[in-house]
């Protein structure tokens, strides 16, 4: 029997339209368009991502992964909780507002990788500078920004 922790009954959703994501084989790329960050999700992370978006809670996901090794369920649940916390910190997911009402998708097809491998969230910040706003020095009498004067 899995010992329950705070937040274990929460279901999650993508945290708004500024989060984009796509799956490729057993990896996921995600982006946070507000922060200028993007991520690759590897290991069992891609499967956790899929299960999260299907509405599964942490214990339900732990159950999914531990079908092959029930004795390891606590360790798996702990790894999933840690990963979910990172996704929340990065603003990629948010608690579903109707978590009590939303039921997990039934009969989810088992992914090829159901043996648990530590989920990896690799974060990249090299695009942040593309979101930096050019400084607005002043606006003219009609409200349009003036360009910086050349020296």
């Amino acid at each position, binding site marked *: 029997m899995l010992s329950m922790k705070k937040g274990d009954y929460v279901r999650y959703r993508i945290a708004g339209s500024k989060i984009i*994501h796509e799956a*490729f084989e057993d*990896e996921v790329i995600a*982006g946070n*368009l507000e922060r*200028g960050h993007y991520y690759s999700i590897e290991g069992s992370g891609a499967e956790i991502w899929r299960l999260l978006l299907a509405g599964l809670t942490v214990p339900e996901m732990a159950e999914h992964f531990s079908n092959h090794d029930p004795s390891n369920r606590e360790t798996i649940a702990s790894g999933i909780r840690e990963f979910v916390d990172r996704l929340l910190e990065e603003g990629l997911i948010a608690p579903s507002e109707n978590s009590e009402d939303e039921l997990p998708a039934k009969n989810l097809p088992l992914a090829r990788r159901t043996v648990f491998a530590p989920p990896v969230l690799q974060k990249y910040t090299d695009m942040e500078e593309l979101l930096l706003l050019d400084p607005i020095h002043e606006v003219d009498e*009609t*409200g349009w*920004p003036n*360009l910086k004067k050349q020296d």
Partner: protein
Amino acid sequence: MNPRRPQDNDGGGRKAVLADFFEQARDVYLQAERAFGGGLCRRFRVGGRLLALYFAGPALASRLTPALEHLAVPADGAMPEFTIFLWDSVSTGTRMPPPPWSARDYAGRGEVRGFGDDRFRLAFHPGSGILNMADTRAGIALYWIRDAGQVPYYESGAPLLPLLNWWLNGLGLQVVHAAAVGHPSGGILFIGKGGSGKSTAALSCCFRGGFLYAGDDYCLIEPGALRVHSLFNSAKLDWERLRMSFPQLEAAVSDSGRLDGEKPLVFLQQHWPQLINPVFPIRAVLIPRLTGRPPTTLTPAKPIDIAKALAPSTIFQLAAAGGDELRLIAELVRGSSGFFLELGTDLDAIGPVLSRLLEPE
């Protein structure tokens, strides 16, 4: 306080205000056009689709059309699928109405917080002073800058990117940050962020390896058909690389690419039109990595590697881009073969390596 400025959290009001501003700005374009006795119309076939540009006067046309000249088509009465009206205030003696947003609404990628939706798209880049607005439902767009003389060199090299993306994305075509070279039978995309070697690889292939050119920084992909379309015939490199590796380009550098602190810009259509190939099938997607050693080699890349090298550097620089753009890029990634191109210092060796990659098995 601007009486037309909507209150915060007034989504419906902002939508109406933006539609109203679009109409006012279009009226200003018409004034500008009348000042010159009628606009200058140029037509281009972009990704197989007909684009019309109406310039109120000549000042902007000379700065924005050279990069598109290889796609120009004569006016034949066919209805354009997208029409952009372009003008500047200084040369046309017109005055743009005040923006219905405030300076604090400007955000990254040229976005304006709270303004813009699925129909009306908007981007204003404070750094360049260029306003792009599109009514995607009507298939018309507006492009304004206060002074045509202030069009930045990078805009001359790759003009109208937000507008082209808003138009073409809905048609299954995606503007991407990539270089492309090849032959009518097939070619290669080079992807990666600025400075990764895309331009060097592309120009080496074309000027030293017998390949044809479709773009060195941006091009248009059609994932459903696994094809690439040329967008711009411009090439840009830093002066040191140009003089050292492609000295034949130096005499062709455009005036706008000769300004201090700016990369030299060359319009290939003006000097080497025979090198341009506007469309070809994509046979491989390569991620260049500068090695500092002479040989050039290929190593397989995973789909996630291709996605990471292509999607962020495309999406984070296109205003209002997001999930729709990522879906088209993902379609390309899933359908193509990817490699890391370990880019050597012997530029003559790059073409043969890539020619072997394109040989039929």
